[in-house]
């Protein structure tokens, strides 16, 4: 399941709901992205997440489908927030459940790595110097390339 929303999410409740009733699940791996209070040497006041309604959901669904093709998952979840978020806030939740831990760990990392390079979201940082759009990081591309294969845009 994927969701894009402005509201915060209840981490515990999300994970309970994700695994409820499926007793084939032996492991659940989770990644939660949070807003840091520093960017480089500067204090960060807040961050605003913009997305492309329609396309963002479509890409997240495709990334999740790809993870389910590559690993034997019993459940998977991507929740991504948009709008203005202050330090400490949850930005993104990615979770993958499988019978065994290796598939869960790998699928979880794959989901966040591909999300970062393929899902249309953009971050605007607010610091004392004013607002500034975040530039893409080449090490995010390298992390995504680890999972060799065709990207969702190539389908």
């Amino acid at each position, binding site marked *: 399941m994927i969701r894009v929303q402005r509201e915060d999410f209840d981490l515990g409740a999300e994970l309970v709901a994700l695994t409820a009733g499926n007793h084939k699940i032996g492991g659940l791996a989770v990644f939660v*992205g949070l807003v840091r209070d520093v960017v480089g040497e500067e204090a960060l006041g807040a961050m605003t*997440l*913009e*997305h*492309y309604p*329609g*396309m963002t959901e*479509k890409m997240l669904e495709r990334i999740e489908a790809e993870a389910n093709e590559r690993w034997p998952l019993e459940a998977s979840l991507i929740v*991504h927030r948009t709008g203005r978020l202050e330090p400490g806030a949850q*930005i*993104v939740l990615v979770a993958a459940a499988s019978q065994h831990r290796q598939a869960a760990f790998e699928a979880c990392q794959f989901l*966040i790595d591909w*999300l*970062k*390079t*393929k*899902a*249309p*979201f*953009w*971050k*605007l940082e607010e610091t004392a110097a004013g607002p500034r*759009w*975040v*530039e*893409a*990081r080449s090490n*995010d591309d390298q992390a995504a390339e680890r999972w060799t294969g065709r990207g*969702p*845009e190539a389908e």
Partner: protein
Amino acid sequence: MKLLYFAWLKTKIGTAEEELSPPPEVDTVAALLDWLAARGGGHAEALADRNALGVAVNLEYARPEDPVGPDDEVALFPPVTGG
């Protein structure tokens, strides 16, 4: 044709969305970017560095040689930075 702009492209061009009617010979992504840049002003500034530009046609990532037409929704944006 519906054009959508995100992040700093929206700021430079000065709008999030506009309806434009390129001439029929503007039938690929590359030709559309050339045509938009030739409008000058914010469009030219926003399109100065094509390498740093992502394009989607009808909610799918597109390449320079991909076709575009009058009924398409075309989005221009910088490299994505979610997560």
